[in-house]
């Protein structure tokens, strides 16, 4: 019986770390500020006190080397979780992630697995600008040898992180800061979920709506609105982006004949392109398909709220585009969906 207990995503993440560190003393957590007073937005709070400074280790500002060092630790038999408070910083670690972590197992003919988890947080909140708000998961999806997960719920965050720590492969764990405060039922005991089938969050026959990461709750809000205008969406959350549950998504598209993917990322060569292409490859020759993508505008992220508001996708832009895919035109009076509370009410200073 699964006990009903509500946790925020940030607490679910901390619980996964803490339980895995308890279970297996090869697990360690490192990154800039993991043991500092802010404790990575609270997600590592208390761990240093409990597990000591060698297992909860602040690091120098050296993303390239520290990523390489994590790989070395993993090769030696440890299970590092390397944390970055902004995904953007991974651009300094690409060589080690893409050229070393993703390939060592293969290049060594199976001798050298790299059980590494990289936790990277998408920085959207407010005024973060072009270098602190990117979502670069598609770059990692492109590279064989990496697994990529972007959970949206507290339960999936705990389950995916637990799985990731136990898995013997390099895994990029993408968090979205605006999801950290979301709460949901999370069992206090072990819970574990790897790649497999996507979550079906809502049933409907008119359109398949795939949300990624923070776009999942926005898709749900959009679906609710759409339902008021007579459009029933099937809302899916893939959770794992690589490997992706292509069959699960396509099964829904086969039913609805329409697919909209909402990603909190750019579209070009993004996860949304992959999902759309995958569906069309499987189904396009047998029937007509109305497909579309919604995500970041094709610009760097601006800081002013006036432009942020149009840069990001939202329940409103998702609903409009979904409406268009079903009805062939945009909703005449728009769709009266607010900015979400967590964005509206965000206060800094960071």
């Amino acid at each position, binding site marked *: 019986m699964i006990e009903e207990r509500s946790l925020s995503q940030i607490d679910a993440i901390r619980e996964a770390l803490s339980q895995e560190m308890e279970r297996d003393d090869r697990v360690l957590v490192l990154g*800039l*500020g993991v043991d*500092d*007073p*802010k404790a990575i937005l609270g997600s590592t709070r208390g761990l240093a006190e409990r597990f000591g400074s060698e297992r909860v280790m*602040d*690091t*120098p*500002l*050296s*993303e*390239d*080397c520290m990523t390489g060092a994590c790989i070395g630790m993993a090769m030696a038999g440890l299970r590092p979780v390397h944390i970055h408070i902004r995904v*953007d*910083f991974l*651009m*300094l670690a690409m060589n080690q992630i893409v050229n070393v972590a993703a390939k060592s197992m293969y290049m060594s003919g199976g001798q050298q697995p790299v059980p590494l988890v990289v936790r990277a947080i998408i920085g959207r909140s*407010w*005024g*973060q*600008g*072009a*270098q*602190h708000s990117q979502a670069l998961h598609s770059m990692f999806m492109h590279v064989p040898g990496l697994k990529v997960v972007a959970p949206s719920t507290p339960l999936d965050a705990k389950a995916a992180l637990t799985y990731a720590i136990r898995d013997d492969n390099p895994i990029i764990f993408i968090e979205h800061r605006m999801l950290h405060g979301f709460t949901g039922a999370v069992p206090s005991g072990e819970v574990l979920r790897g790649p497999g089938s996507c979550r079906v969050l809502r049933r409907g026959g008119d359109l398949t709506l795939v949300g990624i990461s923070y776009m999942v709750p926005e898709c749900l809000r959009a679906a609710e609105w759409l339902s008021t205008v007579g459009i029933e969406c099937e809302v899916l959350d893939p959770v794992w982006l690589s490997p992706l549950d292509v069959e699960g998504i396509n099964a829904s598209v086969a039913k609805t004949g329409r697919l909209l993917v909402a990603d909190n990322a750019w579209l070009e060569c993004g996860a949304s392109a992959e999902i759309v292409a995958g569906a069309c490859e499987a189904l396009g020759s047998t029937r007509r398909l109305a497909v579309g993508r919604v995500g970041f*505008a*094709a*610009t*760097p992220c*601006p*800081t*002013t*709220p*006036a*432009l942020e*508001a*149009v*840069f990001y996708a939202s329940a409103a832009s998702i609903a409009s585009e979904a409406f268009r895919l079903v009805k062939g035109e945009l909703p005449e009076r728009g769709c009266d969906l607010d900015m979400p509370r967590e964005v509206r009410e965000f*206060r*800094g*200073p*960071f």
Partner: protein
Amino acid sequence: MTTDIRQVYRRLYLIRRVEETIVDIYPTDKVKSPVHLSLGQEAVAAGVCSALRPEDVVFGSYRGHASYLAKGGNLNAMMAELFGKATGCTKGRGGSMHLADARAGVMPTSAIVGSTIANAAGYAFGLRRLGTDAVVVSFFGDGATEEGVFSEALNFAALKRLPVLFVCENNSYAIHTHVSRRQSAQRLVERVRTYGIAASRVADADVLRIATEAQECVQALREGRGPRFLECATYRLREHVGPGEDWDLGYRSRDEALPWIQSDQVTRLGEMLEPRERAALEAAVEGEITAAVAFAEESPFPAASDLQNDVFA
């Protein structure tokens, strides 16, 4: 070149008061953006920039208000930028972390620690090739020296004898982590010298010594004698990001700050000026700041249609 104390004080006072003004405004939530203030660290930018000419350029970081102002960046445009307005120095696109004012020689700042060090070296190469005797100053923190790009840039700049002055603003912290927990040995000046770069350190933030050192360095750069390195010890009086104090967080003590507060350079230099002259100067600066805030308040936000502009040149 002798140091013009009035000019240095003007810079110090301007930076101090702009930062304090931001502290005052921040609770209104009009600045919807992180701010990394330079309160306590004014002497470095003010001292170094006193050695520069308008055509020289500076590269800084997300903690860039001080170098922007010290180099002569437009104050109205900075304030409007913090308010996210179309009249901002980057039209509301960059905010506090990415101030830039090309006309004043303030190059775009970066929120990726260390990244502008490389840009500064390249810019210096460009200036030399273009045949000017202008120079580049690269400002960065102690944390930035841990990034590989710092070492790479030292080697490149020294190899090509580039006119760039590297200035490390060593406030002993990267966010909440003391330098002794990040660096195996604090022998930066000595290390930099192994690249063949003349290097020195000002340990007490004496703004006039910083100015003198910078003048000597800049002179050497203009004469083509290769890059220089200057480490300036300093202290951040506010939280890493945001307007508040953070003595309660526990990662550092107020005691640690005391010597820095006691030797505050804004106070010190202010006292060196003739009172009437000082009052006039301060009044002028206050007027500029008041005007800048009004300018920012009154300026319009960018139109949504502006989103797609400036992605490409």
